[in-house]
């Protein structure tokens, strides 16, 4: 069943991406794609290759990264509310990215900003994993995440407070709202391989994360190397979330919504939910970005804002459902 689900979601993602490439302010134009492929129209080439393709690809890889990281964090902490955004991993990555901008380090090399985001994301994920092991409680983990998120937010505010000029300020605000507009293929060339690396680390733990569903003691007795699993998930989440934030800024709730939606179709097995969560995260963000582009607003809505507006009610619904027996 999971194989068919993966195939279906990948197909839907492909169709959504093609539709997003064809669609612009002037409506749907399949001819743009053929013109671009033929190389017969330079305008089509600019629109597709320089503007829409990087944007669609960025939305897809960021969505996949967030969906996968959400599913992996939920499996590791055995908590359906765990997600890079809610647990402060995205906020820390945003702080790491903006800190490199603020201190002028990002100008030294295109790798500095993503590495700053990754280091901060990995640090917070490690702290969360330590809390998850010690407390075994859902509330403590979420509260720790809220605390870390607030701390990262406060440090962000401090940076904004002391931003040297208005340009820097708007640059920093962009990171906190999340967007894939105006991304180039060279931006993708830095972040996408890192996202792939993080994703492979997470997917390698698929079976171990399934086993963790019976509790850490029982799982250890059945052969789980708990330390290795934690390390891989922390490193994978840190790298993938950090690289996603470096590319698109903070985009919340995809990591909680995607695993939640695929779970009934994967037998509620946290390991089997990993890959479908990545596909669905990518699909959701490609569609959300299409919506952002098509909504007739004076200032373009930010992707992170749309994701939060759609995702927060679903998060609340999961919280409320958890009060009922037989639900996770």
């Amino acid at each position, binding site marked *: 069943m999971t194989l068919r689900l993966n195939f279906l979601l990948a197909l839907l993602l492909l169709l959504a991406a093609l539709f997003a490439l064809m669609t612009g302010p002037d409506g749907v134009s399949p001819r743009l794609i053929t013109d671009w492929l033929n190389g017969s129209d330079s305008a089509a080439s600019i629109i597709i290759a320089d503007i829409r393709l990087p944007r669609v690809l960025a939305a897809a890889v960021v969505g996949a990264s967030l969906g996968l990281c959400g599913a992996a964090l939920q499996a590791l902490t055995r908590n359906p509310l765990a997600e890079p955004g809610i647990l402060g991993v995205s906020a820390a990555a945003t702080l790491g990215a903006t800190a490199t901008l603020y201190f002028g380090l990002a100008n030294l090399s295109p790798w500095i900003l993503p590495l700053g985001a990754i280091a901060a994301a990995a640090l917070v994920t490690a702290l969360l994993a330590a809390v998850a092991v010690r407390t075994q409680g859902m509330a403590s983990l979420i509260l720790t995440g809220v605390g870390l998120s607030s701390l990262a937010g406060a440090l962000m505010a401090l940076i904004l407070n002391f931003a040297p000029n208005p340009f820097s300020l708007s640059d920093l605000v962009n990171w906190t709202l999340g967007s894939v507009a105006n991304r180039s293929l060279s931006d993708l060339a830095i972040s996408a391989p890192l996202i792939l690396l993080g994703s492979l680390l997470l997917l390698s733990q698929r079976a171990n994360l399934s086993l963790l569903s019976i509790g850490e003691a029982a799982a250890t007795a059945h052969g789980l190397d708990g330390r290795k699993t934690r390390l891989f998930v922390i490193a994978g989440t840190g790298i993938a979330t950090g690289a996603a934030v470096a590319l698109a800024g903070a985009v919340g709730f995809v990591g909680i919504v995607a695993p939640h939606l695929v779970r009934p179709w994967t037998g509620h097995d946290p*390991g089997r939910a990993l890959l479908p969560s990545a596909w669905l995260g990518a699909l959701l963000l490609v569609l959300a970005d299409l919506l952002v582009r098509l909504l007739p607003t004076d200032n373009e809505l930010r992707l992170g804002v749309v994701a939060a507006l759609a995702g927060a009610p679903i998060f609340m619904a999961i919280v409320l459902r958890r009060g009922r027996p037989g639900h*996770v």
Partner: protein
Amino acid sequence: MSDLILDALTVRAGGTTLLDGITATIAPGRLTAIVGPNGAGKSTLLRAIANIIPSSGGIRFGDTDLKALKPLERARRLAYLPQAHELAWDISVADMVALGRFAHGAVPGRLAAADQAAIAEAMEATGCASLADRAVTSLSGGEQALACLARVLAADTPVLLADEPAAALDPANQYRVMECLAARAAAGCTVVVVLHDLSLVAQFADSILWLHERRLTAHGPASLAEFERHVPALFARTPGFTTDGSKALYFRRDPNS
């Protein structure tokens, strides 16, 4: 089959000694019960043998140092049923039991014929076959205990450790579980079980590790004489025994209390 050998097994945590120098040789083909009052260190001993918690001293299975093995290699030799069942997610009972085959390279959805046979046998033995499609989180405490025992039996290991496997069960299922474990022992496994119900111990155990204040006070056969010697010292109560030869043991309420 080999002996399970504990050599000065000691557990310390935060400056407190939780288990103090347990040395014992546990024979295969027998059901060995760990008996002692609350806080005696029974569950700690089982967790230490299963390598769930760090310990000093040796744990060998025959010539094999269990502590030196990699997690998967150890899990192919030794299965452990914890007292608390921390089941997350709405996975089905069949998928949860299938996780018992993890050390054999199986995961739910990718099961070889041998895995499927072991899972089916374990679910049949514990009476879980009819629950196969139910979500584990929707089961009662007793049903969860049976399903978790099925997972441990499915692992098909020569050493089987179980912490209070009958605690949450009705009398019929208590005897079903103990009969399962006794059958495994009769088939040659080394079965070590923590039990509080001394009547079950008397009827099913072949030998007993008597624990008191985190130390091993005695290790011997599960004979009535041993019960008469150790139970009053450990539990401050004198047991009675049925006279029909069934080895059923009971306690009476103290009329003065």
